[in-house]
């Protein structure tokens, strides 16, 4: 199934990327330090409208830090970030979320106390408007809004094929399912830029296949721009349009999967490292 699903998609979104060269986000000369350690050394690249952009590299290459910079959770000491053309001031994470940047986390960060549905509904929080009193009364505005948002959430639940666990507490779900729910939570906010932090970490082969199918479908169905980090090189190469390769906090390669695959620096640095 997933094989069939994948077949047409990458070429398609690649072509989209080709036509739409507009960068959603540009990172220019980013440098990030923790105290003495430099996690990221002067890295620049861009993420274009409608593409699947992968950042790969062995563990400890600074991928996660990079993603945290993009999502505005870390503030780099040097360099600038341009979002849709204009310079992005250092904002609070929730403000950035409101700009349409959503993300998932490497070690799942679901809200354990809530059901799948509620978790996904939290993804709609940025779209909720009804005021305190409206909610206190519930009937009327608040309920209408709730229902409207529920419809969106249900579309995503259907899209990710998690109907059967709709009302289940997320704590009770399998790892793969939790990852899927988390993707749903990010997706439902209708992000213009979706960041995936090792979406396939710790998954078995089928789960990986499903996940990559979903990533491609998301990219294709909603035209969502996706930036993902992953150290499993194989999967990434199949699903991404362009790849940035990092090693020891520095960028050592950037281009289409094929270009990267044949880039000597990458082969030495990355493939040299036993990829776990």
């Amino acid at each position: 199934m997933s094989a069939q699903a994948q077949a047409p998609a990458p070429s398609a979104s690649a072509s989209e990327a080709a036509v739409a060269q507009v960068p959603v986000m540009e990172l220019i000369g980013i440098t990030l330090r923790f105290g003495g350690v430099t996690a990221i050394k002067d890295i620049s690249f861009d993420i274009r409208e409608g593409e699947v952009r992968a950042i790969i590299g062995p563990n400890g290459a600074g991928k996660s830090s990079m993603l945290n910079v993009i999502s505005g959770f870390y503030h780099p000491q040097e360099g600038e970030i341009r979002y849709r053309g204009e310079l992005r001031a250092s904002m609070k994470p929730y403000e950035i979320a409101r700009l349409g940047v959503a993300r998932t986390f490497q070690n799942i960060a679901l809200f354990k106390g809530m059901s799948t549905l509620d978790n996904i509904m939290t993804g709609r929080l940025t779209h909720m408007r009804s005021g305190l009193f409206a909610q206190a009364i519930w009937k009327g505005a608040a309920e209408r809004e709730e229902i409207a948002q529920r419809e969106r959430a249900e579309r995503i639940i259907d899209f990710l094929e998690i109907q059967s666990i709709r009302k289940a507490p997320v704590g009770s779900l399998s790892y793969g399912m939790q990852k899927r729910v988390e993707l749903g939570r990010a997706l439902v906010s209708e992000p213009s830029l979706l960041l995936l932090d090792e979406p396939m970490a710790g998954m078995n082969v089928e789960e990986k296949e499903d996940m990559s199918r979903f990533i491609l479908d998301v990219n294709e169905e909603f035209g969502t721009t996706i930036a993902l980090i992953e150290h499993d090189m194989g999967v990434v190469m199949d699903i991404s349009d362009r790849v940035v390769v990092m090693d020891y906090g520095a960028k050592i390669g950037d281009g289409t999967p094929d270009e990267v695959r044949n880039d000597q620096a990458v082969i030495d640095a990355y493939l040299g490292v036993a990829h776990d």
Partner: protein
Amino acid sequence: MSADVYYGIEVVLNGLMTGVMYSLVALGFVLIFKASGVFNYAQGVMALFAAQSLVGLQTGQIPFSHLINAVFGLEVHHFGWTLPTVVAIALSLCLMVLFALLVERLVLKHLVNQEPIILFMATIGLAYFLEGFGQLMWGAEIKRLDIGIPQGGNLWIENATAGLGGEDFFGFYIDTLDLYAALIAILLVTALVLFSQYTRTGRALRAVADDHQAALSVGISLRTIWVIVWSIAGFVALVAGAMWGAKSGVQFSLSLIALKALPVLMLGGFTSIPGAVVGGLIIGVGEKLFEFLIGAPFLGGATENWFAYMLALVFLVFRPQGLFGEKIIERV
């Protein structure tokens, strides 16, 4: 220099004395928190209970006499003998260790890897229990505790310092008991610090704080460690209780010194032993000074009740990890 300054100094000195006591109680918290992640609200009541037991044993009270009388309609109260202080102290210490054992067996063991808040609630329950239990065992009335330390202003200091601030300064008034208390507290604090720094068990205790595996690798089971820390906490409670009790009688209010120790913890950080010490001194001095300079003259007094907390609160807002806690880097 005017007398007021000297009175100020006197206040500071007294503040330091109380501060040391605070540190002592705070240490009890820190040890338990470090070793078992439990925030032991019962610490204060433990002090009360310890003091009660001390008095009771000293004066040869019959435990649960009220209850017995109520149930069997008897009229028994005393064995009719008294124990030397040292023996009484030793016995009460045993009592506290026994208590520690029971707590581990009956409570903590069943609550491993519960959320902290639950454990905290459990200790509040423990506090309730122990308070009622203590009063059942030894009676609720206020008792005098005499452990042979002279009480009242220390004349020697008073005379020695008289007139420093001109003729209307009569010298520092410092309670001898406080002096002794301070000395003992200092000794104890140093002892504890040394213990946790240089003994194998002490290191184990600190290891547990970081991670349990490490502790086990030192070769001490978690449960033993818990018993140990609770025993130590019991010991600290005993000393604190004895001092406080000797000073102002053994009564319910004694259990409130726990509440005094809390701001100390916030200030010093829940896991830092030096933090507890320094924090105690700061709070001790701070609240006394505040009362002396602002509280009494302008705010109608009795500001000690809350000043410590406000101080800690304001402090934390600017330094959430406390005095000695290390900076928290949030990760995702």
